[in-house]
């Protein structure tokens, strides 16, 4: 992991369609190391699809995506090797209900990365402790609150020490009280220099934590800039309208 300015993730003219509908159109994106990029926009604007494409869960139709300078959309690329370097946290947590918290977290380190059980469990317990879940290691996911489950999901993504973390509306399923505890975790991760791309509806949080904000509408990145630029003086009419509605709703 070098500290050069070479982007961790780079997208160029990415296009994705589902049948006749174009979900992403000519999307360009660059994510520098140790920065946080927030994707904002209405539901259905393509934020989640963009993240799924970056993790190769969706095959793009055109354009290309690079991870640390290596083109991952090349059909010759090893998809599993790519995914090993990217952590993903989903909106609906997607924890494995048949495994304890500890087993959920140590699954990939042990089975994919070949870490010894004792070491993997120790690392998992340290992470859980840091995220305030020290006592939950042997619980099953269904017995935890939503906020706790989402923090476990974050630990699971972090346990493999990913190069890049993708967060897909990770607070959307949580009530406001629990949103805070999850966002605190993301804030701490930023402090530690984790490179992240997050799709979010939490505008206040995006404004506070993001180094770069992208506004998506109908699958197009209409505006991109620092949080001050986008939230302070948006240039595009669409962005102004979107943010206007957010302010009206009292959410910024």
């Amino acid at each position, binding site marked *: 992991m070098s500290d050069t300015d070479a982007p961790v993730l780079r997208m160029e*003219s990415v*296009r994705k369609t*589902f049948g006749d509908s*174009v979900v992403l*159109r*000519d*999307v*360009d994106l660059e994510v520098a190391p140790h920065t946080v990029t927030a994707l904002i926009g209405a539901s259905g604007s393509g934020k989640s699809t963009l993240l*799924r494409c970056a993790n*190769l*869960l*969706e*095959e793009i*139709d*055109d*354009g*290309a995506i690079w991870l640390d300078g290596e083109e991952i*959309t*090349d*059909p*010759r690329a090893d998809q599993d090797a790519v995914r090993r370097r990217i952590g993903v946290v989903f909106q609906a947590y997607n924890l494995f*209900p048949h495994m304890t918290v500890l087993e959920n977290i140590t699954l990939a380190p042990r089975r994919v990365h070949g870490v010894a059980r004792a070491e993997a469990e120790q690392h998992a317990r340290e992470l859980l402790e840091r995220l305030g879940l020290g006592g939950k290691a042997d619980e099953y996911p*269904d017995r935890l609150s939503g906020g706790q489950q989402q923090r476990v999901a974050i630990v699971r993504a972090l346990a493999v020490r990913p190069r890049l973390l993708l967060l897909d509306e990770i607070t959307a399923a949580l009530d406001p009280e629990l949103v805070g505890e999850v966002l605190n975790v993301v804030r701490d991760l930023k402090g530690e220099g984790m490179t992240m791309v997050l799709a979010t509806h939490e505008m206040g949080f995006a404004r506070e934590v993001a180094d770069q904000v992208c506004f998506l509408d*109908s699958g*197009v*990145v*209409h*505006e*991109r*800039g620092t949080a001050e*630029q986008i939230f302070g003086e948006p*240039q*595009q009419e669409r962005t102004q309208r979107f943010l206007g509605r957010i302010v009206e709703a009292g959410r910024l």
Partner: protein
Amino acid sequence: MTLTKDETGQESGGDSYTPSQRRIEREAFKRARSRRATAIAAVSTLVTAVVLYLVVVNAPGWPRTKETFFNGQYAREAFPKVLEGLWLNVRLLFVCGAAVLVLGMLIAIARTLRGPVFFPLRFLAAAYTDFFRGLPLIINLMIVVLGVPALRLQGVTVDPVWLGGTALTLTYSAYVAEVFRAGIESVHPSQRAAARSLGLSNRQALRYVVLPQAVRRQVPPLLNDLVSLQKDTGLVSIGGAIDAVRAADIIVGRSLNYTPYIVAGLVFVALTIPMTRFTDWVTARMDRRRAQGGIA
């Protein structure tokens, strides 16, 4: 700040998209790779087939085996008789299959009922599955097919087909009940909670939310049991009914040539394959309609 698409192109909804060179190359590569995969599969299949053929044909006893098991003349003689017998197997399969699905479902539901009132029902259902899953089918058949007529009950049939079908239904209902029960219990409790929260009664929750998911999930094991039932319909011949197996048996007994067995076997296989493909197709279609898309 970057603007990546001009407004006019957006508003009209028109899509002035032309595939890039990159996409064209990528797709050409994928096509080439899939052609190569197809070629490898074809060659590997051909080699396997040739090797198998040579091994069988060069076996020391092949000429004799060929004469006793793959005799064209006996095959032609047996085929129409076997088909005639198969019609009985098919009818048995449909009638018993329907009865088994209904009875199995009822037993499964009885076993999942809650509340103390239903204790006897739960107990009976559990006892039924325990007993008939444990009892060997062949013994069950002999008891029903030979034992029931021996009672000389008024108004009870002595037809071996009906009695044999009853025995099959008894055993297979027990198996299928367990398949359904496993399906019902595999539906996440949150689904029942969501249904009950909408005000659905326990029964409605079962009917509209739990069972549809349970049945869908259990289609492959159910099909497994139905195919197995289809083959076991051949066992009704122990009571004297003439099905495909018995029809082959008659010719074998007369000619001491085993070709009719091969014919009967192949006919059963031919009956199963379309059934499996059909179920695969149905499940795949249901999956496609519900799936989020994506390749992982």
